[in-house]
């Protein structure tokens, strides 16, 4: 194993740790905020970044190109579904708000 590989491994581990930190922050936000909109905010922002970092870290450690590409596809799908779901939740919150007053 060359020193480049070792370096990439360590770098990947660091990036993953950073990503996990974002996840923890997002989860904290989910638990601490009291309004659904705010919770959504915490989740989408922090978790998207967290997922990106974790995937990036894993790509750095990936044994081959195929695995790396698969990881990137996972990340893309994650992004799309997160955006879609949060959009839907936001819409339903909006329609609830219009209903209430």
């Amino acid at each position, binding site marked *: 194993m060359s020193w480049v590989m070792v370096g990439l491994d360590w770098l990947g581990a660091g990036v993953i740790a950073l990503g996990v930190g974002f996840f923890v922050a997002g989860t904290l936000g989910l638990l601490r905020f009291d309004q659904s909109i705010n919770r959504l905010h915490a989740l989408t922002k922090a978790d998207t970044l967290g997922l990106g970092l974790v995937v990036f870290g894993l790509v750095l450690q990936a044994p081959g190109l195929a695995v790396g590409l698969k990881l990137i596809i996972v990340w893309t799908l994650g992004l799309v579904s997160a955006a879609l779901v949060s*959009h*839907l939740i936001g*819409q339903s919150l909006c329609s609830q708000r219009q209903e209430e007053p």
Partner: protein
Amino acid sequence: MLDAILTLLILALAWHCVRTTDLFEAIVVFIALGMLVALAWTRLQAPDAALAEAAIGAGLAGALLLASLRQMPEMSATRAPGAKTTGLGWFWWGLWGALGLALVSGVAAIQTTSVSLMPQVQAHLSDSGVTHPVTAVLLNFRALDTALELAVLLWAWMAQKQLFVPGRQTVYPLQGQVLKTAVKALLPLMVLVAVYLLWRGSSAPGGAFQSGAVLASAWLMLWLAQLPGLSRKQGGMRLGIQAGWLGGVTVFLLVGLLGVFQGAGFMGYPPDQAGAWILLIESAAALSIGLLLASMVLVSMPDFQEGTL
């Protein structure tokens, strides 16, 4: 270490799920529990079961539960204040504890017993038409189990059709093109994943169940985005849907009868044709599972009307 943490988390969530008096919270916790249980099952080297549990046990069950919750009366889940306690509390706790202890000691006694059907499975794997042992067990060695389990699904759906009450609530329609566009883009991908899972099932974890679950969610997304996918107004579509419901059971049982005809026994295949028959059965089963599960979730929606399926 990881196992211990996971176990504790699962037990804590399960406890919370049955303890909480807020039904919504209980359901959300149940969904999270399903995900963690699936994770635990991958640790137990059971990727097939884990995939199915994550998709069906947590995903679709969660959708069913949440959709049904909106139609329940606001019944309090707490004990009515006037309800009398029977005074037998200690008795039931004692019984519960004794059963728990009995189970733990019983399971501990067989923890290292080395009995298994795996050698048998491996010895006959080459005659089964597939190379993935779980698929071989499901579709060949114990094929009638699987056929009758598809029947359970079909009969449960038959019952739900009978029990159907049209939704009374109105739900605000979603505005904008975001969902439609996204669904149009994602749908081909989901179908591709379903086909891939089905194909992969013959040699690696995957198969009709997992594929069916993906198809079910694809259909549900079609419906949510109000794209024309499940509308029964067109005659051809209606026939197709009905054929899809019945397809899994009927194809499976008919191929089973064909086995008698070919001398391979009821629910058996000649070894050289087994792979092809299994693929046919799995395709029909995946379509059936997908359609049935999607239909079950659809009729549980609060705004679902009979004509729209």
